[in-house]
C-alpha cells in the first residue's frame, strides 16, 4: 500500500520533470495545426513523420549535424592525447618547475571561456580562420580538467610496475602506449564522454566564428531554425529530437561515466 503510494508520487513527479521531453517528442510527430490550436493538444493527431523530412528541407540540419559530430570527435581525440601526455609527465617524470607547471595547468580551469572570447575571436580573424573547422576545434584541444583527471588516475597506478618496465628497458612512449593506456580505459572513457557532451553543446563560440549555414553547428542551426520557422513548431521540435538523440544515447549508455565525470571532487 505504502509502496503503491510512493510509486504513484514518483510517477507524478517524473511526469512533471520530463514533460518538456515528452512534448518535444510528441510535438515532433504533430501537425502544425495540432501545435497551434486551442486548447493545446497533448497527443499527436497522427504520426507525422514528414516533419523530419520537412526540417531537413528547411535548413541544412544534416550538414550541421555532421559538423557538430566532426568537431566534437576531433576535440575529444585532441583532449585525450594532450591530457594523457601531460598527465603522464606530471605523474611519472621529474623535471624542474613541476609543481609550478601543474599549478598553471590547473589554473586554466578557473578561466571562464567567455573572459578570453574576444581576443580569441580576433586571433581567428587575424589568421583568416573564421568560418572554418580549425576555428571551431583549435581552442579546445587541451583541458586542465582532463590533465588533472588523468594524473589522478595515473597516481593510483602501482609504482613498482613502472620501475620494473624501466628496468626492462621499456621506453616512456612504449610504456605509455602498451601498458598504461590499456589500463586507463575507465578514466579515458569518462573524459571522452565528458568532453564530447561539452563540445557538442557549445553555443557562444560557434555563434561567433561561423557565418554560413553550411559551417554552423547543430546548436546554432537549432537557433536559426527557431527564428526562421517560427510558425512551424512541429518542424522545430523535429529538429530538437534529432539534436538530442546522441545525448540521450550517451546518458543511457554511459550514465556511470557521466556521474563520475560530473562529480569528480564532489564526493570524498
Amino acid at each position, binding site marked *: 500500500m505504502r509502496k503503491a503510494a*510512493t510509486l504513484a508520487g*514518483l510517477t507524478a*513527479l*517524473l511526469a512533471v*520533470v*520530463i514533460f*518538456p*521531453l515528452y512534448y518535444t517528442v510528441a*510535438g515532433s510527430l504533430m501537425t502544425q495545426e495540432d501545435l497551434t490550436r*486551442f*486548447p*493545446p493538444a497533448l497527443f499527436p493527431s497522427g504520426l507525422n513523420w514528414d516533419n523530419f523530412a520537412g526540417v531537413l528541407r528547411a535548413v541544412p540540419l544534416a550538414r550541421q549535424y555532421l559538423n557538430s559530430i566532426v568537431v566534437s570527435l576531433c576535440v575529444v581525440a585532441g583532449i585525450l592525447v*594532450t*591530457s594523457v*601526455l*601531460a598527465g*603522464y*609527465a606530471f605523474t611519472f*617524470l*621529474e*623535471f624542474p618547475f613541476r609543481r609550478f607547471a601543474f599549478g*598553471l*595547468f590547473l589554473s*586554466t*580551469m*578557473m*578561466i*571562464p*571561456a567567455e*573572459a*578570453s*572570447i*574576444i*581576443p580569441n575571436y580576433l*586571433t581567428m580573424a587575424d589568421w583568416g580562420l573564421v568560418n572554418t573547422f580549425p576555428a571551431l576545434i*583549435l*581552442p579546445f*584541444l*587541451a583541458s586542465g580538467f582532463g*590533465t588533472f583527471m588523468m594524473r589522478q588516475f595515473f597516481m593510483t597506478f602501482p609504482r613498482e610496475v613502472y620501475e620494473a618496465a624501466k*628496468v626492462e628497458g621499456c621506453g*616512456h612512449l612504449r610504456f605509455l602506449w602498451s601498458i598504461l593506456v590499456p589500463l586507463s580505459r575507465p578514466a579515458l572513457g569518462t573524459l571522452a564522454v565528458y568532453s564530447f557532451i561539452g563540445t557538442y*553543446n557549445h553555443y*557562444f563560440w560557434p*555563434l561567433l566564428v561561423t557565418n554560413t549555414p553550411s559551417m554552423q553547428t547543430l*546548436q546554432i542551426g*537549432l*537557433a536559426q531554425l527557431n527564428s526562421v520557422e517560427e510558425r512551424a*513548431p512541429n518542424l522545430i521540435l523535429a529538429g*530538437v529530437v534529432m*539534436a*538530442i538523440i546522441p*545525448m540521450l544515447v*550517451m*546518458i543511457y549508455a554511459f*550514465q556511470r561515466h*557521466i556521474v563520475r565525470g*560530473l562529480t569528480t571532487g*564532489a*564526493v570524498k
Partner: protein
Amino acid sequence: MSTASLPRGRYRRKDVVVAVCFLAPATAVFVMFGFYPLVRTVWLSVAASDIFGNVTGFVGLDRYADFFADPALRRVLLVTLAFVLATVLPTLLIGLFLALVLQARVPGIGFFRTLMATPFAFSAAAAAVVFDIFYSPSVGLFNGLLDLAGLPVAQWLTDPATALPSLALVSVWRDLGYAMLVFSAGLQAIPESLFEAARTDGAGRWTLLRRIVLPLLSPTMFFLLVVSTISSLQTFGEINILTGGGPDGATTTLVYGLYQSAFAFGASDYGLASVQAVVLLVLVMVITIIQFRFLQRKVFYG
C-alpha cells in the same frame, strides 16, 4: 633501484626532455587560447581600440570607473545577481528534494532516477527552443493552460517582470538532473550503519534528515553551489535565443552585455566588453579560490 630518491635539484636529462615534449601540445593550446587572450582582454579593457581590436591609445581605469558609476552600465551586475539567485537556489533545492525522494526503496527506482536525469540531454539551445514554443504568447502551452484555468495570459519573454524568471526556469529545468545525480551520489556515500544506529535510537525521518543527511551532505551541497553559480554566470545560449538580453536590458547579464558590446549590431566596443569580461573573470576566480580554501580546511580539520 629507485627513481624517487634523486638528490634535490638533479634531474635525468632524458626525463626532462620527454616531459617537455609531453607538455608541449597542451601548453601551446593553453598559451595561445587561454593565457595570451586573458592578458589581451585586460589590456583591451584599459586601452582604446579600433574595430579590428588594434590598440590605438591608453585610457587607464576610466572605463572601470564608468562601468561601476553609471547606473545604466552597472545594471548588468544586478541582472546577473538576480539571474544567479533565480537559477542556483531552485536548482539546488529541487535537486536535493528529487535525490531524497529517489532514495525510496521501491522496485524500479533506478529506472526513475535515469529518467529523471534526462533533461540533461538538452543543450542550452535545444531547451531554449522548446521553451520558446511553450512561452509563445498566442499559441504557447503555458498561456493555453492559463487560459483554460480562466487566468489572464502572460507575455512571458517580453514583459520585464517575467522575462528573467522565465529564462531562469529553462536553466533550472536543464540543470535539475545534474544536481539530482550529484546529490544522489553524495547520499549513497553515507554509510547505511549511521541510519540504522540512529533508527535504533528512535530517530524519526526529520531527525535523520536534519541531524545526519544534511550535515553529511554539506560538502556535496557546497560543491554544487560553486559549480552551479559559475555555470549560471556563464549562461549565454538561453538568453541569446529567448530574449536577446531584452526587454530593455532586463535579461542582459555580464556575459550577454559583453557579447552585445563587442559583437551585436556592429558595436565593436571591445573596451567596454573587456571590462565586463574582466569583472566576470574576477568573480569566477574569487568563487573558485573560496572553494579551494574551503576544501583545504575540510581536509585538514574535517
